[in-house]
């Protein structure tokens, strides 16, 4: 998996591409979120548009990222979930934990 960061209207947007699975992206999410926090960002949006698969480790990392950002006084939101990722969040009932937006524009405006 690859992950890149960009900035839009005061929000750090992370774009993971590929699989968020054990050994292939779970740690990359953690590193990218920590990097954003260390750079002073309090508003973090993960755009999941390019994610093909997410396993239980990947979900665990998203939860860890959410908690880390919240504990440091920031907000972490998700947007543009592919159906596969949305299904996984439904199954795990995390759909109620995360703030999720259909579009990136809508998510940016909500911060």
């Amino acid at each position, binding site marked *: 998996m690859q992950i890149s960061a960009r900035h839009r209207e005061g929000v750090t947007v992370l774009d993971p591409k590929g699989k968020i*699975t*054990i*050994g292939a992206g779970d740690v990359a999410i953690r590193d990218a979120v920590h990097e954003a926090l260390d750079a002073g960002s309090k508003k973090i949006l993960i755009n999941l548009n390019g994610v093909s*698969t997410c*396993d*239980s*480790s990947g*979900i*665990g*990392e998203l*939860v*860890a990222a*959410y*908690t880390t950002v919240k504990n440091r006084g920031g907000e972490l939101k998700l947007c543009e979930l592919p159906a*596969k990722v949305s299904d*996984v969040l439904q*199954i*795990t*009932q*995390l759909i*109620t*934990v995360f703030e999720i937006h259909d579009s990136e524009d809508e998510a940016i405006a909500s911060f």
Partner: protein
Amino acid sequence: MAARRLVAVAVSGAVHLAVGSRLENVELVRAAIDAVLDGFELDDDTARQIDLAMREAVVNAMRHGNGDDPERTVEVDCSVDDGVLTLRVRDEGPGFDPESVPDPLDDENLHRTSGRGLLFMRQCMDTVDYTFRPGEGTMVTMTKAIGPSPRRARPMEEE
């Protein structure tokens, strides 16, 4: 060395595989299962569910069963009979009781960062059964109906 820890025996429609507990060996298991499933016309969702369940089971066996010890093996059996895929994963760990895992859907557990593997497996497959004996490892057996292979389902077509 990964190769030393790899034993694979393929017979028609089935495979037996033993790999050391290294995450990269999950891809070897994937390749072996792909070989068994070759010829089946699986839709994307079914293929993804099988892949996900396999990964969860094998990673659990390596990590929680064998404690990430590369010298300890995970054995995988994969076969298809009468349109039903059976995937069996066995580790050499102390024995795992699935009932001991806190329910990941309880409100108090929603923020936990682990403990969802079994939930994923149950969601992806038709059946998931664990057998374990203290000191003798854990075996998980999963099944999923995938339909008959096209070769058996379809008589030979005329040119």
